[in-house]
């Protein structure tokens, strides 16, 4: 199986995980969306040199993944795939910020390196939370939840199409790549071949999206995706959301890593 095909299967399987019955599947998608949103806001609101205080936040995606029976390994791989973007954002910090913050074994560590590490941690936390949200809720339900929370239809429909068409496009890429491999071998083709290939890909994807759209309007689609599932906000949803937000506020307000260290070393004041 080509790497493109396996990446595609991975992507589709993340969404398929949401169909399994777990401790979390009874929750309203809005509760999960709001909890994740609270998590992301809390995680990015720290001061730029925060590292230790951020670590307790890693518990949230892990706990949700365990409750939602989401395997951790594919989540980890996907975070790595997206990592270059975060590295690009933070890579110049060590060059710009030379202020020494502390020393480890006699080596002085500058503020730039600390803030770079902080960016990477925040990136891993927020992306993990978002991936776990998709894997426990399903992309479609997230969009339904967002729409019910008052996000304009035009955005939620766009999101759904983006999700649907990215699978379509990836399918075209993998078929085209297979055809290339079968007749061109594993060796790379001259650059000049890739131009027409990309052009073809664009035309094929456009044709296909046209057909999908025609199939949709044939069944009465008028620009609004409606779900058959009625959302019910229950007490358990309020409790889940309140518990999540309470934990995030606690972890934001108090440096739990610091407190734990102090307790272990018997320096509680």
């Amino acid at each position: 199986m080509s790497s493109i095909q396996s990446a595609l299967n991975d992507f589709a399987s993340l969404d398929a995980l949401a169909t399994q019955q777990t401790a979390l599947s009874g929750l309203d998608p809005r509760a999960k969306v709001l909890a994740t949103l609270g998590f992301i806001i809390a995680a990015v609101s720290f001061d730029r040199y925060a590292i230790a205080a951020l670590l307790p936040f890693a518990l949230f995606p892990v706990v949700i993944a365990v409750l939602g029976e989401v395997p951790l390994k594919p989540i980890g791989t996907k975070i790595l795939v997206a990592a270059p973007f975060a590295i690009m954002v933070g890579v110049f910090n060590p060059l710009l910020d030379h202020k020494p913050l502390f020393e480890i074994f006699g080596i002085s560590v500058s503020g730039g390196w600390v803030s770079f590490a902080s960016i990477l941690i925040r990136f891993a936390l927020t992306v993990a939370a978002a991936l776990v949200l998709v894997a426990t809720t399903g992309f479609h339900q997230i969009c339904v939840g967002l729409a019910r929370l008052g996000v304009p239809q035009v955005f939620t429909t766009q999101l759904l199409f983006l999700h649907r068409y990215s699978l379509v496009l990836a399918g075209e890429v993998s078929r085209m790549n297979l055809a290339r491999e079968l007749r061109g071998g594993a060796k790379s083709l001259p650059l000049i071949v890739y131009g027409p290939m990309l052009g073809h890909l664009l035309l094929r994807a456009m044709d296909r999206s046209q057909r999908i759209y025609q199939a949709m309007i044939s069944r009465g689609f008028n620009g609004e995706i409606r779900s058959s599932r009625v959302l019910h906000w229950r007490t358990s949803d309020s409790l889940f959301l309140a518990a999540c937000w309470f934990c995030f506020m606690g972890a934001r307000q108090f440096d739990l890593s610091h407190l734990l260290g102090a307790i272990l070393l018997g320096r509680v004041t």
Partner: protein
Amino acid sequence: MSQHQIEALKLCFTYPDGHKALQGLSFGIGQGESVGIIGSNGAGKSTLLLHLNGVLRATAGEVRVRGVPITAASLSEVRRTVGMVFQDPDDQLFMPTVFDDVAFGPINMSVPTLEVQSLVEAALSRVGVSHLSSRPPYRLSGGEKRAVAIAGVLAMSPSILVMDEPSDGLDPAARRRLINLLKGFDHTKIIATHDLDLVLDVCSRVLVMHHGRLEADGTPNVIFSDSVLLERCHLELPLSRQRQ
């Protein structure tokens, strides 16, 4: 008022690139008729089908559904009346589960939620795939996808079924199940296909298309005994007839 369920009057269509796909087709199809549309690749079959529920709009001439011309105002009623099953079920199945996908049409028609449930269950059991209800469509086999795509259209309770290559890509057993299913429908059926044996089995009338024109219109017996016509339109005798 016409007694025709669906009627094409001097239908012409030219694609934006100048390709003349339909060049003045006229025909009428009555209640409960089962009509096969045959013709070589590029004869205009798929283009014609897309006109029957207003996905494409004629550059000249018109299509009437139960006597009403297809216009922007009648479009939603037309799409409720004319159910279209696409050639590639993957184009049609895009919701996260089979249930959601079959429910897509009825929900868009603003059917109350409770009724949607029973409509979907009835449609799935009609095509014999009730057990797939909670599965994601992209994990199904070709035959299962086809059945779900048909259920998605049946759930809208159309009185006319339009199908593009329904037996395309099916194994012999799945194809046989499809043929039996189609024979059991009392809808008006319009089926574009290269599967001439399916036409013999299911259809009581055949339209032959060639280069965007209607070359012949008659019963399967008459059409399939005209070897000159078949050769001119790049067609052959159905396999079951070749053996005789």
